[in-house]
């Protein structure tokens, strides 16, 4: 395709500029000394110092990290099992419905997942007394619903490219199915599992809507703190926090990308 060369270059520059300039503006203004966000008055890192003293924010961040790690781990276990059964047991009854149900959370609006999960938890508590109140556990379960869908997609596409004859050879040589899974299948799909874990973690840590519905008193996550502060307007402290988050996520995504790219090259 050698046509429209100048036009294509312009599209790339404009498109990527549109995607990155707003993020850049947040990063640049996080180093602004003035409390008035839009007035530039010199370089400073004082807002990063203020972040470290904000106890409410730090405890919310810690809770988000804990919920993210638990969600990602649960989502990876369930998502890998789902992907494995979708790729290897295509003959099972109900696989078409199963496939649809695993993919549906990918496009379901968060507000519906949030409301539906909360109503489930409230009704379950009335019926069985579990979960008693809402907090970390209920957020993890609700997050796993959508995080698992992403893990399934990533692991499934990797698994589809794995030669099943190696697994069959191991079975022929007398290995038990569980042994085959842990010694043959798991090592080959490990990069997808790591990438899936990182993606699930990122999605969970980022979520505001589902967490707002399923959290209880005393379980305020980082996006909930950011949201209530952002509603009041732009602040340099949030700019600094945003910069920290953008940096961490970029590093995570780059690692996940490299892990997948390297495993493909092999």
């Amino acid at each position, binding site marked *: *395709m050698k046509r*429209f060369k100048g036009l*294509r270059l312009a599209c*790339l520059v404009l498109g*990527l500029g*549109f995607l990155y300039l707003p*993020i850049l*503006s947040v990063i640049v203004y996080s180093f602004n000394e003035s409390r008035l*966000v*839009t007035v530039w008055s010199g370089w400073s890192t004082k807002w990063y110092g203020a972040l470290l003293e904000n106890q409410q924010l730090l405890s919310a961040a810690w809770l988000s990290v804990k919920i993210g790690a638990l969600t990602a781990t649960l989502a990876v276990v369930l998502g890998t099992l*789902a992907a494995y*059964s979708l790729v*290897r*047991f*295509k003959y*099972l009854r109900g696989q078409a419905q199963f496939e*649809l*149900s*695993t993919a549906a959370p990918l*496009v379901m*609006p*968060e*507000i*519906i997942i949030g*409301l*539906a*999960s909360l*109503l*489930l938890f*409230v*009704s379950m508590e009335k019926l069985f007394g579990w979960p008693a109140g809402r907090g970390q556990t209920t957020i993890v*379960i609700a997050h*796993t*619903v959508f995080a698992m869908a992403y893990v399934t*997609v990533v692991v499934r*596409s990797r698994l*589809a490219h794995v030669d099943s004859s190696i697994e*069959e050879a191991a*079975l*022929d040589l007398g290995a038990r*199915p569980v042994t085959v899974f842990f010694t043959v299948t798991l090592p080959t799909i490990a990069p997808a599992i790591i*990438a899936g874990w990182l*993606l699930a973690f990122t999605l969970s840590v*980022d979520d*505001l*809507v589902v967490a707002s*519905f399923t959290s209880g008193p005393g379980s305020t996550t980082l996006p909930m703190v*950011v*949201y209530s502060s*952002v*509603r009041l307007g*732009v602040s340099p402290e*949030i*700019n600094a926090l*945003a910069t920290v*988050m*953008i940096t961490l*996520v970029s590093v995570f*995504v780059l690692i996940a990308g490299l892990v*997948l790219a390297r495993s493909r090259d092999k």
Partner: protein
Amino acid sequence: MNPFRLGQNSWTALSGLAKSPWMVAIWPWLFIAVFFLTPFLFVIKISLSEAAFAQPPYLDVVRSVSDGLVEIKLNFGSYLLLFDDSLYLSAIWNSVKTALISTALCILIGYPLAYSIASSPAHWRVPLIMFVMLPFWTSFLIRVYAWMGILKTNGLLNNVLMGLGIVDAPLEIMHTQAAVYIGIVYSYLPFFVLPLYATLVRLDHTLLEAAADLGAGPLTQFFTVTLPQSVPGLMAGAMLVFIPVMGEFVIPDLLGGPDTLMIGKVMWTEFFSNKDWPVASALALVLLTLLILPFVLLRYFERRSELEDPNEAV
């Protein structure tokens, strides 16, 4: 693939395997059934109950009256209210309108971007598509927040425009429908570009050469060969924008004004401020109904575009 087609001597190993496919499949199935599918039954049930000053704030549909007697009381009041009060109808209509216009804007901006990436030299494509996807993984809230700083009356955009002398008075963009469109297009553009790119990059180039040999100019080639072939990816991308935007809450709440009503925002208010769980549930079901049609379409086009390799996108 199928473990039942293995060689004879593996049947001993397989004797224990006969039940094991279900041992693997049952766990994700159970989780999805309990925590993703059953909740919708409760949404239906609570949408038919009566709001009350109680904890939780509704009267149960099924109540035991006296010994052994159970009373079932269905209340359709929430649904009647939705179609009676113009607030809800205009929120629903505005959501549909916003989702349609945002999708159209994503096509206008995203198509040239996806096309440019797909026709770049091969070694540039993966880094470029990764650059498009990277903002998607950074906090959604932060990306919307970035636009608050840019669009507000004394924000970055107005400072730049007034500094350059392009406008005399600051533009009032913040808290309008225009700000909502900007926020949505910005947040959802990567969702649109990715599936379209996946389709464009696999196009059959021999067809373009054939068209050129037959004397078609670049524009004719694009409209008669490239565009029709990219429709499955285009539709998949459009659905990935349209569906979540219909339920969007954060963007209209932070960038929109009091008159930018959308279903998600009204649901949130009913639930958290008015504590009217039945109306919020009824709204969720109306939203879900509106979404089922495009979702069926999405599945259809996804199959056609064979969007199989999300690894490339990570």
